[in-house]
């Protein structure tokens, strides 16, 4: 999947839980879900569940713990999508 498309899908997901309009508008790969978007730990779980549904992938506990910013999320989504391609 094209990285720009992936980023825009991710932006749509986090928009529902973000509490910082400016940080959301200027979302980039360095955006931190907690520090920048002010998403709490409970809503971070919802972000991950929405990612699973949107991309039809399964996120394990280890990946969840690493998914703290946009670049980590993209990297995890891309690697899960690749795993599916290989199967």
């Amino acid at each position: 999947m094209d990285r720009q498309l992936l980023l825009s899908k991710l932006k749509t997901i986090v928009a529902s839980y973000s509490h910082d309009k400016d940080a959301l508008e200027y979302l980039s790969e360095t955006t931190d879900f907690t520090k920048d978007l002010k998403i709490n730990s409970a809503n971070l779980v919802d972000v991950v569940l929405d990612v699973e549904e949107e991309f039809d992938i399964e996120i394990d506990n280890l990946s969840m713990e690493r998914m703290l910013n946009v670049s980590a999320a993209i990297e995890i989504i891309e690697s899960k999508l690749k795993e599916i391609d290989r199967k």
Partner: protein
Amino acid sequence: MNKEEILSHLPYTKPFLFVDELEHIDENGVKGYYTFSKDLDFYKGHFKDHPVTPGVILTETMAQIGLVCLGIYLTATAAAGVPGHVMLTSTAIDFMKPVFPGEKVTVTAEKVYFRFKKLNCTVQMTNEAGEVVCKGTIAGMVTNKMNA
């Protein structure tokens, strides 16, 4: 973990314990009861001369039975699990009917999901006539430490 053990693990006591008894609990949901004593302090002020159970207290009662009891059960029954603490993170409740002093209510909760330590439940409270008093969704994080 049985129903009595769950109650003994609840971190509340009077005047903020809103669970009397659990009728049933399993990995998918829970059903329990609470009777609002006429002597509860908040009736003196909510409202002046017209005591009605505050919505926040109804929400708390649903959270204690539906979310906290279920969270303790799920963490205690997990492999090598210890009973966790449940930190409330969101509520969305609709209120249909008032609950007056002395009324006994039944709370039923169904697990929507329990993943990455977040427990999300649909909850419903009914009165003795079987009418729905309030219902909605409650969620919390189940942690090892209180206030973590």
